[in-house]
């Protein structure tokens, strides 16, 4: 089973890289951008075939390693 996870910075956490990307886009002529926030994307291929169990396991992975919950949120965006 393949699971996709997106990790994003929480709203009140400063994202200087996102800001620089925003400024660069602006300089390139993409002037209608309000904000850019940079995140991380993971594809996890697991032996677990049961969707519920796989989702639970990936959530544990997020909590224990993939995300730091002080500054980041995680979201499972795809299971197949």
């Amino acid at each position: 089973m393949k699971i996709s996870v997106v990790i994003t910075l929480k709203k009140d956490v400063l994202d200087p890289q996102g800001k620089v990307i925003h400024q660069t886009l602006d300089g390139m002529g993409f002037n209608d951008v309000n904000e850019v926030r940079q995140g991380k994307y993971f594809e996890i291929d697991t032996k677990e075939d049961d969707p519920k169990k796989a989702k639970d396991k990936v959530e544990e992975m997020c909590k224990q390693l993939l995300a730091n919950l002080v500054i980041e949120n995680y979201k499972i965006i795809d299971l197949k």
Partner: protein
Amino acid sequence: MKSSVITFPGSNCDRDMDVALKKFGFKNKMVWHNDAELPKSDLIVLPGGFSYGDYLRCGSMASKSKIMKSVINFANSGGMVMGICNGFQILVETGLVPGVLLRNKYLEFICKNVFVKINNKTNRYFNNIKNNVLEFHIAHNEGNYFCTQDQLKEIEDNDQVAINYCDENGKVEEHYNPNGSIKNIAGIFNKEKNVLGMMPHPERMIDNCLSGEDGSIFFNNLINNLK
């Protein structure tokens, strides 16, 4: 006094720390991250560097390595654990000290001498130290200390801030904040003050030919406090 320095794949200040600890009288042992057991120690040091190439988040992989289970147990039973730079990043990832270290505010790797004000001397790291301000060296890309407002309140209520970036007279102002850290925080304790994480490198200031000797003051004081 016995100390142990943990070497992770990618640590690069481990040998500097070994030299510094030995210079001030510690009997130091180097411990590999994949070992399970710690030698008998009065002080454990997590050194600076780029453990696991800073993959995922700085310190996140190292915080899950085999030896860290023993380090966490040692810290939880009151043992002295000090994390410098990447070692501090590892400590926050274990949860032994609160908060996280974000990318520096201006996205630059900073390598320079800074002054830090000692905020709390009622602990075995800074007890009896005469100076209020020390000159240390920093070299990091992710030293921007961040925590939630609730955590900050708890940290301040428990007097857990160890050192703040300041000027040579001890004035703590935003102007002297190199990396955007909340409240100029350069180092922090756990609640019990036996665990210290800090971005500056005292081991780089132990000889005049290394641009200063304030690290000598720190290590001399530390070993005397542990005796």
